[in-house]
């Protein structure tokens, strides 16, 4: 088990992710108004009620360079929403989020994959979607395919792949370039055990070289073992930021003992 990181280890100018008073508000229509006709009728009758739902409310924290930052909380606590803010998929309704450096969101693994296209075409499509320049993809193509161990199948259409093979290819493209920030959601189960070890090794390698990690997991032991710091999210509020052990203890106290 790692001890809580001394705050002095990471000088302030090495902050890579800044979340400042960020809130995210979803509109949850009281009754689903999906058609313009309904909307117009209700608007006239003044019956439009949007229940505001704050997925995140006034969340502030920082992630420093090289840090492994854990996020824990019950389902629906806002963990995924927070990851989306950092991945730039969502903008905060209030507050501010900034990220210095390139983000490799592993939630975007295999984004845009098309079953009719060959593995090769998908590598280019997915890589472009991740923001890799064309030249880079051409140069790195063989390395990507080698890592995914798909040399023999790369020109076959993706629909002939097993789901494990597709996941391997997605992981291989998404992690080919060392990112400044890694977003890892839940257990990273890619392919068989051998490939899982290989992918974990690659993530460790990035972390060793200074990439920061935002890590979401329900495995409390895993959080305590691997994270430098952790945050506990509860119904959109940030209850605690600090040592992973304390965060886990606080979180578990809130859950009625099952066993």
């Amino acid at each position, binding site marked *: 088990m790692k001890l809580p990181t001394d705050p002095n280890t990471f000088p302030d100018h090495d902050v890579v992710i800044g979340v400042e008073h960020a809130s995210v508000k979803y509109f949850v229509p009281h009754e689903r108004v999906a058609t313009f006709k309904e909307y117009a009728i209700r608007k006239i009758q003044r019956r439009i009620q949007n229940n505001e739902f704050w997925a995140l409310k006034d969340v502030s924290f920082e992630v420093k360079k090289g840090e492994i930052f854990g996020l824990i909380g019950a389902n629906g606590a806002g963990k995924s929403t927070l990851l989306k803010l950092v991945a730039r*998929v969502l903008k905060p309704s209030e507050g501010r989020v900034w990220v210095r450096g390139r983000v490799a969101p592993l939630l975007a693994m295999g984004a845009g994959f098309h079953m009719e296209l060959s593995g090769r075409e998908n590598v280019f499509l997915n890589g472009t979607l991740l923001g890799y320049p064309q030249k880079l993809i051409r140069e790195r193509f063989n390395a990507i395919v080698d890592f995914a161990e798909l040399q023999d199948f790369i020109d076959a259409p993706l629909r002939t792949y097993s789901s494990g093979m597709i996941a391997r290819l997605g992981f291989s493209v998404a992690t080919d370039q060392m990112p400044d920030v890694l977003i890892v959601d839940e257990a990273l189960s890619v392919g068989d055990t051998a490939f899982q070890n290989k992918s974990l090794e690659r993530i460790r390698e990035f972390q060793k070289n200074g990439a920061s990690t935002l890590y979401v997991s329900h495995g409390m032991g895993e959080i305590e073992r691997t994270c430098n710091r952790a945050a506990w999210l509860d119904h959109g509020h940030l209850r605690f930021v600090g040592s992973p052990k304390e965060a886990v203890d606080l979180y578990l106290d809130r859950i009625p003992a099952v066993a």
Partner: protein
Amino acid sequence: MAKDASVPFYDSAKQQTAWLDEFLQTLRYKDLIMHLVKRDVTARYKRSVLGIAWTMLNPLGMMVILTVVFSQLFGSVEGYAAYILSGLIMWNFFAQSTVSGINSVVWGGDLFRRIYFPRSIFAISAIGTGIVNFLLSMVPYIVVSIFVGKPPTIYFILLIIPMVLLAMFTLGLTLIIASIGVRFPDIVEMYNNIILLAWMYLTPIIYPIDILPDWLLSLMKFNPMFHLVKLFREPIYYGQPLYPQLLGICSIIAVGTLALGWIIFSRMTDEIAYRS
């Protein structure tokens, strides 16, 4: 704050004009457009027997049917088959590009929720796919036009100008309807099923302009596609240079629609992730 220019820096609070920001991001992701077009084109043809021929046969088939049905009525039109086909090719480009562009923005949710890229890319790549299909369908047009005795003239190459204007108009309209459709999906249904059909019959695609009564003709000036189809037919069907006044009208329509669509869409773009 960013000390190193090579390190990307994202700041959600950065104040920038929405339309400019969307434009700059789109430029950065321009390679993605190419890959999405390639994906759509190859995915469409990979598993079909007829392959690319289908794109050429589809408007041809419709042309044959319409020519047979309407040649009694409009037989006076010189090279009626070429007249219909030139209109159909152009209309198909417009209708297919808007429909697929709007649908991928409104229903393309999964990708939007997982990764950032400028949302307008989907609309633009739909236009790109449309252009590929359009170029393919030029082949049967040339064959038919020679066959009916209206072969291409030197002005044929001017086609590129109406095509660019049409693409701009199409993109603008796609962005406008997609922006509304994100909130109200039924608008999309209405556009796909009713508006497009009515619009096609209100535009001289299969009938000649001179059959229109005066009152309808005077209303036609409010139909952007009326002007665009006229401009489109000049170089390929009539074999004439572009008429400057018409060119002016079409340019205003194209630039205006695109500007309006772009501004509306870039304001809506953050909402897409919340809704989908």
